[in-house]
């Protein structure tokens, strides 16, 4: 907890366009803890941020949005109770409702995994990813973060083939996740998969890819991006 606010400020200063905070509500007393730190992050951040993890109800989402988050992201709870997406979109507007999808597979057969926060509980092959992408849009998702598990943590580039096929059926903003390891991977995913955003954690956290350098490079490649 202690280092979240300075880290948020560091990314703000480096020029990040949006921050996503994952799995920070693991505490049994998650609700008050999350609200407290979301408020503290709101005090320092002047860019949009999204909170993911531990949000299971409209009430959970309301607390986090009221504390200053721009968006909330849900993953496993949406698979277990798809109507939660409809309820959240009705209550907050779809622009607040991000659906995180962990997709695994290959050769055109990609399926959704759940409970990916805990390796012992992860369940694979739940439903075809394309089918779930269509359903969450119909239910009111305002944005989809597609995490390609085969590429996650490997740092060999985003799964542009899978992302491009999802792009074709996705009429809301699509964010690529999983696989960023080099500066070229970002230009490739914007160009070849036509995503609206690219998410990365490790390469930014470690400083392997300075955000300012990345944005200069992408602008040079013709990607429309805030300097």
């Amino acid at each position, binding site marked *: 907890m202690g280092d979240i606010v300075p880290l948020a400020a560091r990314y703000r200063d480096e020029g990040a366009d949006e921050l996503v905070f994952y799995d920070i509500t693991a505490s049994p007393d998650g609700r008050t803890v999350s609200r407290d730190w979301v*408020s503290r992050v709101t005090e320092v951040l002047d860019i*949009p941020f999204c909170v993911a993890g531990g949000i299971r109800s409209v009430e959970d989402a309301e607390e986090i949005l009221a504390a200053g988050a*721009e968006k909330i992201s849900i993953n496993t709870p949406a698979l277990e109770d798809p109507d939660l997406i409809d309820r959240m979109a009705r209550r907050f*507007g*779809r*622009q607040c409702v991000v659906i995180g999808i962990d997709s695994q597979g290959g050769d055109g057969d990609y399926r959704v995994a759940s409970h990916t926060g805990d390796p012992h509980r992860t369940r694979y092959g739940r439903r075809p990813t394309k089918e779930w992408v269509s359903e969450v849009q119909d239910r009111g998702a*305002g944005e989809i973060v597609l995490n390609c598990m085969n590429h996650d943590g490997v740092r060999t580039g985003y799964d542009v083939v899978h992302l491009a096929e999802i792009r074709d059926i996705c009429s809301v903003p699509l964010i690529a996740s999983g696989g960023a390891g080099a500066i070229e991977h970002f230009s490739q995913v914007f160009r070849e998969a036509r995503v*609206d955003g690219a998410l990365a954690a490790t390469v930014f956290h470690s400083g392997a890819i300075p955000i300012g350098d990345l944005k200069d490079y992408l602008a040079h490649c013709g990607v429309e991006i805030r300097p």
Partner: protein
Amino acid sequence: MAVAIIDSGGANIASLRCALARLGCEADLTRDEADIRAASHVLLPGVGAAADAMQRLREAGLERVIPDLKQPVLGICLGMQLLFAESEEGQAGCLGIIEDRVKEMQPDRNRPIPHMGWNRVRTVQDSPLFDAIEQETHFYVVHSFAAGSGESTLATSCYGEEFSAAVSCGNFFGTQFHPERSGSAGSRLLKNFLELAS
């Protein structure tokens, strides 16, 4: 004198309060007519649907108070759209300060709706609101409805079609983008607004 944020019921007030606090301004969140009339500057934020927001303003008796205000007023996002005569969102009648209509944006293959992200903003009229903000600066925008360009347009942005990114009409100002989420440029715009003579 106090700065008032009109409590229009949206969830997203905290980020605006914090952005103002970083400028040394502790704003009051209120739907009280006397507080709003007495404020030096009034902000009208809004997230959600136009018809719901207008309903809440009507319940608080503010649909007639707001157009009558004489101090600087800044509508943000939906708050800007409420300054118009009407919105296609829920076929809502709005505050009627700007005689134009807010329309639904149309998605296509390369343009997902809602439109979310950082967009270039081009000013088309000089305004103290954009003092010391460079042409083509990026601001953060989230919307599915938009107003086209018109006489009140201060700045435009483009997403498939051109839309009003900022408007003004007398003492009323509006931004389709979120200055409270738009980094240092957004902070400068809020500072410019607070420095307008009341």
